């Protein structure tokens, strides 16, 4: 019946319609290919964007790993230990080898071996004594004890581990500065070594400030990566893939929160940090975010007591 209606409607004008329809089909087909190519250009741009973001992602991850607090702490400790040993040996050798040098070159050569051994022993003894003193002082420090307790009670899990790592890092920094300040206090005014030790303390304090800022920047990076992942989730092919990506993003956000809170608690114990946006539940606004403070100001250099 429908066929009859169409045939009736087209009667007399059938040829014209057919020609028009054919032309329209051809035009539509051409349009379809052109549209398809344009759509594929968008696909191409999407792929480029994905690859770039994935590369940025890898770079950021590497950067974050590079500023891993534990690794920095061990690096600082290593540098400090080598520096202290060298300083101790040099001081001792200056005193003992000076007269030998002036007396006789051959005797100097013979003397060097035993004197070096003796000096190294002396330096090591002095270092152990200084470290013992520093540890005794640290043992009286409430922040140090509190930080140790935080580490000992940290449970398994990425957030707790991150917090523990950040605490370890802060402790390493504190101990290094304690050691150097102890050494400095034992040197008489005018001793040329004082300048060197002061410089080392300044450097370490600087490293501490820089690292705190780096840790905050790491948190920001984790958050940005989480945001990118959420964007990727929107373009996922399946629900399964989408959920997996979202879960990964959630993990990154947890890490970011954890890092940020740890740094803030280290700097401003008890400070409450809003996760995102403004205060919730009608509570008053939180104080200015600690990461907005001027970390380079000497007044903000953590809780290190004066030597």
């Amino acid at each position, binding site marked *: 019946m429908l066929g009859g209606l169409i045939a009736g409607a087209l009667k007399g004008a059938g040829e014209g319609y057919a020609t028009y329809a054919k032309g329209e089909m051809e035009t539509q*087909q*051409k349009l379809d*290919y*052109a549209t*398809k*190519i344009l759509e*594929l*250009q968008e*696909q*191409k741009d*999407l*792929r*480029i964007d994905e*690859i*770039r973001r994935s*590369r940025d992602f890898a770079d950021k991850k590497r950067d974050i790993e590079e500023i891993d607090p534990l690794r920095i702490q061990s690096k600082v400790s290593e540098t400090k230990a080598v520096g202290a040993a060298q300083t101790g040996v040099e001081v001792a050798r200056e005193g003992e080898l000076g007269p030998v040098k002036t007396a006789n070159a051959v005797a100097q050569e013979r003397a060097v071996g035993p004197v070096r051994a003796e000096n190294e022993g002396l330096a090591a003894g002095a270092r152990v004594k200084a470290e013992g003193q520093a540890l005794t002082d640290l043992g009286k420090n409430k922040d140090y004890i509190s930080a140790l307790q935080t580490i000992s009670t940290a449970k398994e899990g990425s957030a707790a581990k991150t917090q523990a790592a950040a605490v370890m890092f802060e402790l390493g920094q504190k101990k290094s500065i304690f050691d150097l300040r102890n050494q400095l206090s034992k040197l008489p005014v005018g001793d040329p070594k004082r300048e060197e030790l002061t410089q080392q303390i300044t450097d370490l304090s600087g490293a501490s400030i820089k690292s705190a800022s780096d840790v905050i920047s790491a948190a920001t990076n984790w958050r940005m990566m989480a945001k990118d992942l959420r964007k990727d989730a929107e*373009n996922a*092919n399946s629900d399964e893939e989408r959920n997996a990506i979202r879960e990964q993003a959630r993990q990154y956000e947890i890490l970011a929160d954890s890092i940020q809170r740890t740094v803030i608690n280290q700097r401003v114990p008890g400070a409450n940090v809003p996760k995102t946006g403004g205060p919730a539940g009608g509570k008053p606004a939180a104080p200015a975010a600690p990461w907005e403070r001027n970390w380079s100001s000497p007044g903000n250099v953590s809780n290190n007591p004066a030597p």
Partner: protein
Amino acid sequence: MEGLIQANQAPESRDDLTPEKVSQGIQIPDEFKEAYERVVAAGMQVMFSKQSNQAAVDSIQRGDGPLAQRLGMAVAGLIGMIVKESNGTVPPQVLIPAGVELLSQAADFLRKAGIEPVNNKVFGDAMDVMITSILQAAKLDVQKIAGFIEQKAGQGGAAPAAGAQPMMGA
């Protein structure tokens, strides 16, 4: 084939040969436009869809020889695959221009995504490899084609007529 492609001249070390510039140099007779767009769309679909993009990048990166060789061979392979899948319905006249268009898209993609540094020289060399490969796959002699084009040009005629038997897939 003469007149279909107008190669752009650009300094070799530069990398300013964009798909837009290449497209401007490709002139397709009206009767081949649809087939040309069909091949380009199919090729781009393979290269840039989420499902096959990685495989397309791999085909370029895992090939033998320098970048130009790998790029040219990959696009020639893609054209061959499209011809095969179309059961020989693709007119041979559009294979080279569509290949050049796809090559420029691939080069642009590699460059923008930072996967490979494709400059104008690499693009030119890759185009050379691709054209030679397509002609060899079609069992056509480049010299014979050049002679044929010259002969047609001398007679004031055009390139092979539409409806000619497909060169590839035989």
